[in-house]
């Protein structure tokens, strides 16, 4: 000890570096190097404290579910099926749960064959199983930009390369998608699937238009690519007419004999009932379904029979008028969330003001707000949490490179009551004004940083520039284009240039 403690010279060869870290490191799989953590995650851990107003979570409001009903349903499960509830179940899921899934899908206007369903442990497991089945290291996934922050670590863990396509008011521009697919082909890179959340996208809050949905399914067929349609919020629509699922459009094309041919559908009970149940599902073409099933066997054998039976009991419930009770609860949630969304939009109008823009979601749980380009929302979160006790998800979390989206944030309006939504937005607005004021003082301009902003960051204002082939895309729909925060694409792709400070 004496020698090494006082004079450790002599370089690497003098002593094997057999410390703990290197020992573990040599045992870890290569893919763990691609697994990412971030300062943001450290900060998010702090937002769980009770004195912080968190608009960060992806939470529905589970306080709305009647405790008596919960107790009653559990008692029914106990009375009718204790042994089954406590036993392993089939990997593909219990038949009674699959029947409920058929009902939910029907409510979305999508007819399915129960034999094409696999019940999963939350919708998140579908993303994991699809990657497990399809992705070799280096394979390409095409996703929206921004994309679901929860998919980012999954894609990273499977060492996928992700191409992100900037959305506009109507979701993913399909001509841009085709450009990317052409480029990938020219580069000899292999896209395996296109990941999209067509309804009330998380985190973007926008919805893919019908022409784009049709065109997306066509493109998938032209190029023999799979689509992973992630649809957790489709039934949480607060206004406007529902649009058909990609799954149903695929089925209409008829190539799969009435079933979807290239769409892997992801659904979940998390947002229409409870995330605590950890129950989701996939409806997939049979060859894919087989691989998902094999993957699930290795992951967890089966999803919880306790909660599957709970769902089955819940779907048997009828209200006084004989209507399914789950539909009544859905209406109750929609009324609640619609009102909270409106509160958030009002609060944003009042407190975010000039220089900021945000989406006006027709459903779902999230608003995506984009601030003055000089604000970095990761830093903003540090200050907002510390000085104001409020939290949100910084935009970078929705980008694979962790750099783009730096002026944006995701705000959840569903899991917080209206007073806290107002107060939370007020507090964020206050910190934004402080930071902009500081900028102004530092630059002497009061409003603009020196230099050409277009050269340092993505445009934040929507522009009319568009070159979509789809006719419906040629003109931005005024009601949507007026309110959406996403930049319309620019020909040179500068809207996607990363903000590098």
């Amino acid at each position, binding site marked *: 000890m004496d020698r090494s403690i006082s004079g450790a010279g002599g370089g690497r060869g003098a002593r094997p570096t057999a410390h703990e870290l290197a020992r573990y490191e040599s045992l870890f799989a290569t893919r763990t190097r691609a697994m990412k953590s971030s300062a943001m995650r450290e900060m998010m851990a*702090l937002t769980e404290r009770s004195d912080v107003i968190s608009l960060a979570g992806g939470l529905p409001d589970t306080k709305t579910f009647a405790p008596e009903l919960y107790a009653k349903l559990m008692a029914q499960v106990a009375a009718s099926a204790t042994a089954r509830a406590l036993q392993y179940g089939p990997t593909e899921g219990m038949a009674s749960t699959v029947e409920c899934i058929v009902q939910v899908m029907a409510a979305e206007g999508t007819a399915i064959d129960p034999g094409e369903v696999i019940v999963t442990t939350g919708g998140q497991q579908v993303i994991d199983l699809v990657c497990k089945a399809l992705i070799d290291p280096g394979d390409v996934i095409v996703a929206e930009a921004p994309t679901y922050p929860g998919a980012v670590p999954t894609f990273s863990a499977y060492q996928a390369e992700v191409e992100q396509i900037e959305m506009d008011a109507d979701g993913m521009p399909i001509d841009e998608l085709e450009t990317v697919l052409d480029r990938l082909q020219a580069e000899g890179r292999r896209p395996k699937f296109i990941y999209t959340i067509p309804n009330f996208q998380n985190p973007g809050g926008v919805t893919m238009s019908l022409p784009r949905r049709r065109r997306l399914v066509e493109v998938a067929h032209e190029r023999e690519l799979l689509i992973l349609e992630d649809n957790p919020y489709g039934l949480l629509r607060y206004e406007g007419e529902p649009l058909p699922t990609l799954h149903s459009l695929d089925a209409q094309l008829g190539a799969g004999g009435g079933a979807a041919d290239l769409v892997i559908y992801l659904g979940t009970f998390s947002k229409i009932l409870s995330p605590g149940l950890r129950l989701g599902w996939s409806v997939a073409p049979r060859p894919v379904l087989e691989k998902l099933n094999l993957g699930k066997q290795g992951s967890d054998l089966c999803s919880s029979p306790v909660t599957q039976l709970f769902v089955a009991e819940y779907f048997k419930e009828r209200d006084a008028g004989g209507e399914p009770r789950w539909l009544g609860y859905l209406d109750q949630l929609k009324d609640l969330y619609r009102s909270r969304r409106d509160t958030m939009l009002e609060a944003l109008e009042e407190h975010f003001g000039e220089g900021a823009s945000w989406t006006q979601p027709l459903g779902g749980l999230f608003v995506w707000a984009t601030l003055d380009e000089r604000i970095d929302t990761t830093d903003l979160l540090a200050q907002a949490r510390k000085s104001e006790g409020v939290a949100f998800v910084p935009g970078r979390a929705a980008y694979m490179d962790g750099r783009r989206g730096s002026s944006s944030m995701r705000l959840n309006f569903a899991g917080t009551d209206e007073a806290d939504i107002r107060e939370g937005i007020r507090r964020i607005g206050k910190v934004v004004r402080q930071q902009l004021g500081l900028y102004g003082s530092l630059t002497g301009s009061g409003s603009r940083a020196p230099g050409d902003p277009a050269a340092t960051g993505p445009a934040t204002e929507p522009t009319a520039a568009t070159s979509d082939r789809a006719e419906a895309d040629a003109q931005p729909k005024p009601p949507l284009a007026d309110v959406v925060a996403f930049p319309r694409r620019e020909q040179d792709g500068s809207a996607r240039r990363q903000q590098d400070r």
Partner: protein
Amino acid sequence: MSSPGRVVVLKGGRSLERNVSLRSGAHAQEALTRLGHEVIAIDVDEGFVEQLLSAAPEAALVALHGPDGEDGTLQSLLESIGLPYTGSGPAACMCCTDKALAKHLMRGAGIPTPDFHSFRESWIEQLGAAQALPSVERSIGFPLVVKPVSQGSALGVKFARSSDELPGALVGAFSYGSKILIERYVKGRDLAVSVLDGPEGPLPLPVVEAVPREEDFYDYESRYEIGMTTFVCPAELSDEQTARAQELALSVYKLLGCHGVARVDLLLDEQSGELWVLEANVVPGMTETSLLPQAADAAGIGFDELIARVLQSAFTR
């Protein structure tokens, strides 16, 4: 301490380094348990003092990172209730936590530290301190580093390559604290020398080099995730460089009045070959990827022995 007794491990807290602290604390707890101590872990929050008093321990092991645990106020509190605690006392903690103060002291003592100026956020508004920026830019030059004076773990550390980038870097760094440093950027190798007290007094441990896997900056992410940074210990340095780094670390430890254990971060200038001291940390990380445990290991001091020595520092003040 003659026989193992009851020890509280203080961890968690509300700082941005909460998660790191929880991991440090958990590691220390395991080691103390193996050493035969009765261990009570306290996540420092509202019920802290009450928990501490009811636990009636013989000593407290401080594993609280960030301002909560390192700015000296916790240490003062522990002294006020007469509880022996590990590591440095209030004065050394205050010096190390305020990087600007530490650098002033170092400069005064002739210890090389990169040129710097410190700024307070309120000065910008109240004193029009933005007017001073051009002269700061001239004296420090680009690229430069902006960092909060009292954050560890590289949180809030920003680069500016030109005047255009400076306001953004300042606003970013001010998000993490009201006082910041503007420091000359030294391109070079990241070194850390931990100093550990022992029977013969404080001795520097072998030098650890942190080699980031990714280009750019040794950032917060890579510092705490296994695999994101490669650590080399002992660092591949000449005997003279090693001796110089250890000598500097020990001088800083003594200068700032540290006690028990501290980690001194240095840079080896790739152009001049000079060593620069950046800062000292009074509550070094104890996670599986932390530099102190690695350095101790390279010196033949296992983790349990390291923790035993750190604990001993509570009784040798």
